C-alpha cells in the first residue's frame, strides 16, 4: 500500500478543521449558546437591525404603506437643513436640556449637601424628594397641567403672593418650555440628589480634617475639596441628564402636544409626528440617525473625558 500522501487538499482540511473539542467542552459551548441565544436574537432583531434599517430608510422616501421605498439619496437630510420647524424643535430641545440640567443639578447638589450631614429624618427627606423619580409621566403631566392652570392652578398661589400674575403656562409660546423644564426638574431632582450623595460619601473625610487643621471652613472646603472631588459625578450627571432631556417625549406629548405653534415641540416628539402622524418614515429616520449620532458623540466624549478628568 502507498502511504497516504499529504496532498494540499488534506493539508488544507487539517488546517480548517477546528481542533477536536472534547465532549465535555462541546457541551459547555452548546449550553453557552443556548443560554445567550434569546438575548442575542432579541437584541439583533429589535436593537441592532433597527440601526441598520434606520440608515437605510433615511435615504428613502416611504409612506410606510406603499410597496416601494424610493431611493432619494441625501434629500431627507437636505430637507432637515431647510426645515425651519426642525431647527425650532432642535433649539427648543437645547433650551429644555440646558435649563433643566443646570437648575436641576444645582438644586440636587444643594440638597445632597444638606443631606450629607448627621441629621435625624434623613431617610424620610430622601424618600420624599426621590419619590417623583419613578412616577408615570403621563399621570404626572396631567397633574402638572392642572397645577399650571392660570386661573385655578396651585402655582398661581405663590405667584400671587409675590404680586405676580400667573402666565398662561401652556398656551403662551414664551412659557411652554419653562413649564416643561419645571416638571422635568421635579421628576429628576431626586435621582441626581441620590447620585450626588453617593459621590459626597465617597470623598475621604480625612481630607476635610486636614483642611480644617489648616483653618479652612465652609465655602473654601466646598470649593477646594468637595467640588473638585465631585467632578466625575457632576460630569456623569450632566451627560446623562442632557441625553435624557434630548429624548424628552411623554411630558411634552401630554401637556402641550408640542404646541402652540411648535413652541414646545421637541426633537423626539417631532420625529414621532413625522413618522406616525404624517407617515414620512424617510424623513423621520434621517432625524433618528442624526439623534443617534449626536448621542453617540456625547457618549464618546464622556468616555474619553472621564478617563482623563477623574480627580482622585
Amino acid at each position, binding site marked *: 500500500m502507498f502511504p497516504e500522501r499529504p496532498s494540499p487538499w488534506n493539508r488544507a482540511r487539517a488546517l480548517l478543521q477546528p481542533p477536536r473539542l472534547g465532549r465535555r*467542552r462541546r457541551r*459547555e*459551548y452548546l*449550553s*453557552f*449558546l443556548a*443560554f*445567550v441565544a*434569546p*438575548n442575542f436574537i*432579541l*437584541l439583533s432583531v*429589535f436593537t*441592532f437591525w*433597527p440601526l441598520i*434599517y*434606520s440608515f437605510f*430608510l433615511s435615504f428613502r422616501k416611504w409612506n*410606510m404603506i406603499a410597496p416601494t421605498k424610493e431611493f432619494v439619496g441625501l434629500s431627507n437630510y437636505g430637507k432637515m437643513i431647510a426645515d425651519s420647524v426642525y431647527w425650532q424643535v432642535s433649539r427648543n430641545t437645547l433650551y429644555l436640556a440646558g435649563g433643566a440640567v443646570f437648575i436641576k443639578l444645582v438644586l440636587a447638589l444643594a*440638597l445632597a449637601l444638606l443631606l450629607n450631614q448627621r*441629621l435625624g429624618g434623613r431617610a424620610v*427627606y*430622601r*424618600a*420624599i*424628594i*426621590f*419619590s417623583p423619580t*419613578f*412616577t*408615570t*409621566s*403621563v*399621570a*404626572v403631566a*396631567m*397633574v*402638572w397641567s392642572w*397645577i399650571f*392652570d392660570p386661573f*385655578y392652578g*396651585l402655582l*398661581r*398661589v405663590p405667584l400671587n403672593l409675590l404680586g405676580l400674575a400667573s402666565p398662561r403656562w401652556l398656551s403662551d409660546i414664551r412659557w411652554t418650555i419653562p413649564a416643561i423644564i419645571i416638571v422635568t426638574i421635579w421628576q*429628576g431632582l431626586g*435621582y441626581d440628589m*441620590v*447620585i450626588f450623595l*453617593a459621590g459626597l460619601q465617597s470623598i475621604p473625610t480625612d481630607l476635610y480634617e486636614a483642611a480644617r487643621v489648616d483653618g479652612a471652613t465652609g465655602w473654601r472646603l466646598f470649593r477646594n475639596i468637595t467640588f473638585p472631588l465631585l467632578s466625575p459625578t457632576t460630569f456623569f450627571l450632566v451627560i*446623562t441628564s442632557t441625553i435624557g432631556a434630548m429624548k424628552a*417625549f411623554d411630558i411634552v*406629548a401630554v401637556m402641550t402636544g408640542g404646541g402652540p405653534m411648535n413652541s414646545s415641540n421637541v426633537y*423626539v416628539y417631532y*420625529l*414621532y409626528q413625522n*413618522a*406616525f402622524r404624517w407617515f414620512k418614515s424617510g424623513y423621520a429616520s434621517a432625524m433618528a*440617525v442624526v*439623534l443617534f449620532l449626536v*448621542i453617540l458623540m456625547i457618549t464618546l466624549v464622556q468616555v474619553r473625558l472621564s478617563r482623563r478628568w477623574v480627580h482622585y
Partner: protein
Amino acid sequence: MSERSASRLHSRVAWRRGLRNAGSHTLLVASSVVVGLPFLWMITTALKGSKEVYIFPPIWVPKVLRWDNFVTAWESAPFARFYLNSGIIAVSGVVLEVLIAALTAYAFARIEFPAREALFMIILAAMMIPGQLALIPNYVTLKQLGWINTYQGIVIPHVSSVFGAFFLRQAFLGISAELFDAAKIDGAGHLRALLSVALPIARPVLATLTLYLFIAKWNAYLWPLIVTNTQNMRPLPIGLFMLRHAEYQIGPEHLMAASLFVLAPVLVVFFLAQKQLIDSIASGAIKG
C-alpha cells in the same frame, strides 16, 4: 483651659451646631413640601366637588369628600380593561426580561466559551442605540409579524436585557466557585446551578431588578402608544391620555382621580421598597 470655659466653649459649639441643624431641617422640610405638594394636590383635587375645583385661592380640604369622583372616573373609560392590559404587559415583560437577563448573566459568568468578553461587549454596545431610533424599524418588523395591536407586540421588543444582564453577571461573579463546584458534584447542570445556586444568592439584586423593571414597564408610554390602535389593547398611561380628549365632559377632579389609578401601583411599590431602590441607585446598579 479651665473646666468652666471649656464647658462654655462646648455649649457654644453645640448651640451653633443646633442652629445649623435647625437651618438644614428647615430647608429640607421646605424642599420636601414643594416636591410632595403635587401629590397632595392631586389627591385633594380628586376628592373635591365639581364647584370646589374652581375656587381660588384653592381649598385644601374639601367640605365633603367626594369619593364618587373615583367611580365616575372609573366608569368614564374602560379602566378595568386598561388595568388588565397594564398588568399583563408589565408582568409578562418583567418575567421574560428577568429570565433572559439571568440566562445571559449566568452564561457570561460561569460557562466557558471562546471570546466570551468580546461577545459581552456586543451586548453592552446595544446601550449606545437609543430606543427612539428603533421606533420605525420595529414598527415595520411588527407589521410583518402581524403583531401590531397585540400584547406580544408591546412586550417582546423590550425584553432583551443589557443592564439587567450586566448587574446580575456582577452578582454571579461574586459568588464563590466552590458553591458551583459542589452543585456540579451533585450532578447539577448549568440550568440547575442557575436556579438553585446563583439566583437564590443573588436574590437582593434580582428583587431590585424586578421592581425596577416593573415600574419601567408600567410607566411606558411611547411604544404602546405607537403599537396599539384600539381601546381594548391600551395600557393605563395611554388610556389616561385618551381620557382627556374624550367626548364626554370630564372635570379636573375626575382627571386627578384617574391619574391616581395609574400612579397608585408604582407609588405603592416605591414606598414599600424605597430604601432598596434608592440604595441600589446610589451604588450605581440602576440607571434612572
